[in-house]
């Protein structure tokens, strides 16, 4: 077995050790209970003040920054919907050149971009691929609320099968309009970029401090890194904001949201949902807590359950890469 890789980073050992100071602070126009706001709060708290951030168009741009005000304490800049990767590369290259030429002080400046599931997983995936092939120290965070939430909830490539959005409304003729299966972005990017040393999935509030430490690992390991966060969205998923914290947890525990890190090619499960690991609760327990699945019938839920079971029990590397094995016989 390969030895577990070591990353030299300052681990946050427990909730009482989480830094108290906010660098993304109160006064942003996000929804009540917005988990993506917690994702923003978390990554900048983990990275610290010597950081420059870009935010692609999406909820975390529009909701957070109402002109002439901002919740950001660190330098932040908007970037275009599909330019998450390019914005990070541009800044990282600029900083590196200026430091090498002595125009600014030599120091570690974290370069982070956040983009939504639409920005990073669909439109900007080319740019992120370019970024992950570069040799710049940068982190790209895809906050995944499974919809184009800022334009009032349309399906994206990462929406769950069957979900209601304004593009996929249940109708009298077609109950299920969202027939695409959730795109496996973190796995795709890990497999596609052999020199990228760190890809992870995370949820800002579950398990506690896991996301903060994954952010620090990504920023310490060097080179371009990627974190896919699962962000429950009270507006788009149609649940009362009060229950935001448990939606992420349930999504992970039912296996729909694989929670893992890939460190230099080694997969480390944060929540091993295989039967042989921590196992899984039925997907129904997660789906039934959301108004966007209100129209599903048992047949739909069974279909989702089957897909999730296959992901955890038949993939060669469960939850990460949909490769079921090597066939001996020629077909």
């Amino acid at each position, binding site marked *: 077995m390969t030895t577990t890789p070591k990353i030299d980073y300052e681990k946050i050992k427990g909730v009482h050790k989480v830094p108290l100071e906010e660098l993304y602070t109160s006064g942003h126009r996000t929804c009540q209970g917005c988990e993506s706001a917690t994702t923003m709060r978390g990554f900048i708290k983990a990275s610290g003040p010597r950081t420059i951030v870009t935010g692609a168009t999406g909820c975390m741009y529009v909701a957070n920054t109402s002109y002439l005000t901002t919740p950001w304490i660190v330098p932040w800049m*908007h*970037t275009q919907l599909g*330019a998450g990767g390019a914005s990070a590369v*541009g800044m990282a*290259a*600029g900083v590196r050149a200026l430091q*090498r030429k002595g125009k600014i002080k030599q120091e570690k400046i974290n370069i982070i971009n956040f983009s939504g599931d639409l920005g990073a997983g669909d439109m900007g995936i080319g740019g992120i691929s*370019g970024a992950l092939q570069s040799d710049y120290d940068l982190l790209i965070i895809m906050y995944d609320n499974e919809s184009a939430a800022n334009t009032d909830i349309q399906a994206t490539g990462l929406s769950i099968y069957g979900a209601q959005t304004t593009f996929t409304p249940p109708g009298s003729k077609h109950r299920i309009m969202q027939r695409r299966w959730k795109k496996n972005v973190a796995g795709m990017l890990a497999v596609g970029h052999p020199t990228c040393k760190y890809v992870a999935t995370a949820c800002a509030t579950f398990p506690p401090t896991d996301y903060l430490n994954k952010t620090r690992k990504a920023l310490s390991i060097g080179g371009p890194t990627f974190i896919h966060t699962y962000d429950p969205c009270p507006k788009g998923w149609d649940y009362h904001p009060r229950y935001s914290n448990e939606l992420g947890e349930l999504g992970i525990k039912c296996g729909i949201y694989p929670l893992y890190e890939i460190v230099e090619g080694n997969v480390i499960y944060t929540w091993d949902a295989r039967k042989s690991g921590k196992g899984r609760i039925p997907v129904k327990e997660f789906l039934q807590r959301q108004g966007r699945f209100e129209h599903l019938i048992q047949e739909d839920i069974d279909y989702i359950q089957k897909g999730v079971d296959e992901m955890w029990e038949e993939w060669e590397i469960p939850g990460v890469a949909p490769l079921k094995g090597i066939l001996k016989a020629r077909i």
Partner: protein
Amino acid sequence: MTVTMEKPKSGMSDGVYEREELLNGCQAVAQGVCLADVDVIAAYPIRPYTEVMDALSKLIADGAFDAEYIIADSEHSQFEIVKHASSVNARAFGGSSGTGWMYGMEALTVTATDRLPPMFVVGNRALDDPGAFGVEHNDAMAVRDLGWLLCWVTTPQEALEHVLIGYRVAEDKNVRMPMALAIDGAFLTHSQHIVKIPSVAAAKKFLPQYDLAERRLHPDNPISVAPQANEDWVMEIRRQNWEAAKRARGVIKEAYKEFNAIFGERYAQPYFDEYMTDDAETVLIGVGTVAAPGRTAVKRLREKGHKVGYVNLRWFRPFPTEELRACLSRFKSVGVVDRDFAHGSPDNCGILMHEIRSCLYPAKNRPAIVNFIGGLGGRDLSIADAQKMFDITAQAAKKDSMDGYITWIGLRE
């Protein structure tokens, strides 16, 4: 005032010029970028501008200058990389042609509205479809309303010099607008001439360090750039861009004064050159390399006693309204050469024609004005074509109304 093309005055000795090299337009731009000590370059291939990036990577590989050189995954990413590099106070450079330039249009728009001053070279090329490599100006023209500096040059020497001049204007704290340096595909990008390359010292003397100052992104300068704005704010933000474009005219004048002081009287006027226009009655005006056949036709027609002249317009944005109005209203008739199209526009004229007609509208004595659409998709605009254009333009002065008259010069019809 007749001005012949001024050869670079000072010789090698006094350290203003370092050496001469045979360079095409692309390679000359690359030398300019090298002299400007650019920090970040993002590359992506598309004919005919690609050789700029070929030349730059070789210069970096050989240590001629130090820059981050990024091979982007698309023009959209390429331009965004350049924009964000510029936002952290790094001098940044990019470029493209035709449909590649259009692919990154979103990024070009926000670079202007973010008021960042990177430089882009545009190797003018026909837009798709069908795919065609030849020169056409619609690509660079596409940013004309967005708050860009936009300038055409006619020779590799000018191309090199306008990288320096372009950064000088773009980065001025009263301007801070992105600069598009347009060079005609093939006729300039791939035409090799001997170019006098300025010394590093002279370039440094002319072009100060890029400093975004209070708007640079750095942990020691915490700011938020471009928060989401609603209807309470956008009018005011647009007005700032509008004012900057107006201020750019004055800064351009200063830049050429400073340039001429170091490199010798290279440019008699900042915005455009006039050739044998003192007593001219009939004049052609155009942008880019059509200037060579245009001026040569003037020379030959003058020998036959025709009172003709040529105006080579350099700065399309900001448009030199006052100066051009004063210049063109001295003539009986003006022929505007458009190497672009504007389907369905007023009188179906080209873009340059609309701008010049609009510029002349309030002039006291307005010349007759006709339009020529030619050289699209890379077709020649030869001396013969120019003579034919002069002939038609001269007739316009006699006929009572040939206003808005269009000729597709060189078309099989």
